[in-house]
């Protein structure tokens, strides 16, 4: 018996918290080892450099969070559309806003025949929803409704905020490990006159390995969070429309379409409803993918 959408939403949200917890644990362990080693080598003078970098990362993340709607639409070449020219699109969005209690977002269209959509904006009051021309011409009303419901769910669930936090954490983890590697290269030229040099070297080796692995693990956790949020968005979309088949058949149409979306790149890929970088770097598909496999998503929606 498959989970209904309420269960799916709460299950996926719990998984997101677990993933964030893993994140903090990872950073905690790393910081502990880091400060332990720093203490022995240099005393605490270099910590403040890390804080500056850390603050800069957070600053950039915050700025991009607040300007996400402008940045993403500019990068994607999307154009805002009115109700006069795109009546059905506006009607569907208005219907879904009634179903979800969300305020109506700004609506944009990308001039590309690939079928894809994204949503961005830090909260429902500053939200933007964007679809490609391909969506409008190649999906029927139910399918388009499913896709838009998925996008509005991202807004409703504050996913942009979640992913921004995750990105900041990755930034911090990357900086920490980067700094650590630099320390060791500079430090190894000094004389190692500390006691227990055997234990020391062991700790050093472990620290270097961790320093190299941390960015990778951090990224993997971020991607895992992103995939979970995609499932939550699918389930929330069903909560809105009470029609899982609309989204399921839309995903089917998308999966059969091999056309990559030209304006998308690795930086914006995670925002789209389906991975727009089709056929490129297929090995990325599992642990490094921002989206779960489409077959799994369709299975979750249809229960078979």
């Amino acid at each position: 018996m498959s989970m209904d959408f309420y269960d799916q939403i709460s299950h996926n949200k719990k998984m997101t918290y677990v993933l964030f917890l893993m994140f903090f644990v990872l950073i905690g362990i790393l910081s502990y080892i880091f400060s332990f080693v720093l203490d022995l080598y240099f005393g605490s003078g270099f910590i403040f450099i890390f804080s500056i970098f850390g603050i800069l990362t957070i600053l950039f993340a915050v700025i991009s969070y607040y300007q996400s709607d402008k940045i993403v639409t500019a990068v994607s070449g999307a154009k805002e559309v009115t109700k006069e020219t795109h009546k059905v699109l506006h009607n569907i969005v208005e219907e879904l806003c009634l179903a979800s209690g969300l305020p109506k977002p700004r609506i944009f269209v990308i001039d590309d025949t690939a079928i894809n959509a994204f949503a961005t904006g830090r909260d429902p009051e500053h939200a933007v929803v964007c679809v490609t021309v391909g969506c409008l011409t190649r999906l029927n009303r139910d399918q388009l409704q499913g896709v838009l419901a998925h996008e509005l769910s991202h807004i409703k669930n504050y996913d942009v905020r979640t992913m921004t936090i995750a990105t900041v954490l990755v930034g911090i983890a990357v900086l920490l490990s980067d700094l650590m590697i630099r320390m060791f290269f500079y430090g190894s030229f000094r004389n190692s006159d500390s006691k227990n040099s055997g234990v020391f070297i062991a700790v050093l080796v472990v620290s270097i390995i961790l320093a190299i692995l941390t960015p990778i693990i951090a990224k993997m956790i971020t991607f895992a969070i992103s995939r979970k949020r995609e499932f939550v968005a699918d389930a929330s979309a069903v909560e809105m429309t009470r029609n899982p088949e609309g989204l399921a058949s839309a995903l089917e149409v998308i999966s059969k379409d091999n056309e990559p979306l030209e304006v998308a790149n690795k930086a914006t890929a995670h925002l789209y409803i389906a991975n727009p970088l089709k056929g490129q770097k297929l090995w990325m598909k599992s642990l490094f993918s921002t989206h779960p496999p489409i077959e799994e998503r369709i299975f979750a929606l249809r229960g078979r």
Partner: protein
Amino acid sequence: MDGILLGLALVILVIVVLLIIWLIATYNSLIVTEKQAENAWSQIDIQLKRRADLIPNLVDTVKGYAKFENKVLAEVTNARAAILGAKTPKEAAKGENMLSGALKSIFAVAEAYPTLKANTNFMALQEELSSTENKIAFARQFYNDMVMKWNTMILKFPTNIAAGMFGRNKEKEFFEANEVEKKNVKVDFSDLS
């Protein structure tokens, strides 16, 4: 001895303060949820009014097509009159259901009139009315979601205690499809020959 008494008094004080904070927070969320439900109810009305406003335009567009002047068109105008003249919510609801049925008939019958179907005005109206029907349905769905949220909140422990204390523990009714609406709408083609 004094120290123990003081400690005990402090603990009791902290507990009381926490309880008060919890009561305030719970009361506020009860108020917010109740207002959300009331707003959701009014959203349904807004969409119903929108639909009623579209009717005159629809009647005008369709009037020129001979056979339409009969039963089907009359159903629509009668339904709208019933809504406008209703004195109780129950009468208004009955009128709204009549209108839903009548609109379904019009669009079904229009299938037999290719020139009417191709009329741009009619097509625009069809999209508007069908979208409005969707909006009415979604508004009702959202209202039911809010009712579920409210009813669950006032019944769950420990919120139900606070709800009882403040007298805000009356369950709301779900919006239910009327019996008339649930019966299949019979489309009458008899006057089309």
